[in-house]
């Protein structure tokens, strides 16, 4: 694969990805912070639908056509500590690494600073990779739940897809996504305009 072809495939993939991140409103800081405050579940809905689709796609591609999976190794300390730090950053940024770029595309100016900070963080990690990995001192295996259960990948994947679909059905029944997008499509439920008007009115009286 030439680098030019790889870039063209990447661009096409990214444009579709960014288009639906914007359309679903999941890139909104209001949605991401709302998810972390367990108030707005739009992020979980997009996230789990992508996981469910991926499970089915990979069950077919791996189970029927033998396409190889590309798992990351299980590193207990790095996954837990890195994940915690990443989560702190996501709440403060109101974005994850990918949605930062969607925010820039949609016009949020602060996301440019998130991007620059992210690049600085990535460079800094690069210089400290050796001591950090030495500190954790882990050698991980690429292990999946299918191996733990001793079941074929495709069967486990479809089983999990069914369970996650049930979770989404229950969450949607409890709170509809149409409420979660917010009246100004910024993920602020109850509506920015309406709530700020009410607040201003209450201050007056």
């Amino acid at each position, binding site marked *: 694969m*030439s680098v030019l*072809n790889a870039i063209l495939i*990447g661009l096409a993939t*990214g*444009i579709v*990805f*960014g288009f*639906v991140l*914007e*359309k*679903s409103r*999941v890139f909104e800081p209001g949605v991401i912070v709302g998810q*972390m*405050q367990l108030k707005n579940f739009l992020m979980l809905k997009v*996230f789990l*639908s*992508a996981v469910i*689709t991926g499970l089915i*796609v990979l069950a077919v*591609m791996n189970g029927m056509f033998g396409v190889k999976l*590309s798992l*990351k190794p299980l*590193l207990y300390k790095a*996954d837990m*500590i*890195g*994940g*915690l*730090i*990443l*989560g*702190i*950053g*996501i*709440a403060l940024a*109101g*974005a994850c*690494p*990918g*949605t930062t770029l969607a925010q*820039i595309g949609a*016009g949020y100016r*602060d996301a440019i600073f998130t*991007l*620059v*900070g*992210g*690049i600085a*963080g*990535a460079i*800094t*990690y690069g*210089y400290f*990779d050796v001591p950090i990995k030495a500190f954790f001192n882990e050698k991980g295996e*690429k*292990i*999946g*739940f299918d191996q733990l259960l001793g079941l074929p990948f495709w069967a486990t994947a479809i089983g999990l897809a069914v369970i996650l679909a049930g979770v989404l059905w229950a969450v949607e029944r409890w709170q509809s996504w149409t409420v979660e997008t917010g009246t100004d499509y*910024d993920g*602020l439920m109850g509506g920015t305009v309406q709530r700020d008007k009410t607040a201003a009115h209450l201050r007056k009286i």
Partner: protein
Amino acid sequence: MLNLTDKAWSPYVAGVIIGLLQIPTFLLMSTALGASSSFVTVGAHIASLFDSQVSDVSYLAKHLWGAKNWWQVAVVGGIAVGAFLSMRLSGARRQTISPVWARTIGTSTLSARAPVAFLAGFIMLFGARIAGGCTSGHGISGMAQLSVGSTLAVAAMFAGGILTAALFRRA
């Protein structure tokens, strides 16, 4: 029906489309969707402007070149283009910063928000590189492959996010 000029699509439709992007990614690139290592590729090139020894820093050096590294930079760049196109088609133009920041941490100007955003980006990518992936690589892709490590990283990510957001005022 879905319309390109709509301001909002169902999260389920968006999620399914994102999940289907695994097909070209696995078939053409022999990898899974991800976003955070592209920050290392771009960062390594920026670092090389100031540090002629970057190719001796093995982690940065291995992200400098190669089809997979530049594919991911293109994906992440494409995300900005796609979001821009969608916003222009629907007219859902955004303010300078999201109103959520005034509501949750009392920040309503770009100059007050910028240092927090920079620090947040730094923390986010530093953590993602320790964990070896972000919401895309560990989340959308790792969980779809039933990876135990990715599921652990996603649980930790939500734990960190929920604990931090609990310190904010309610959105």
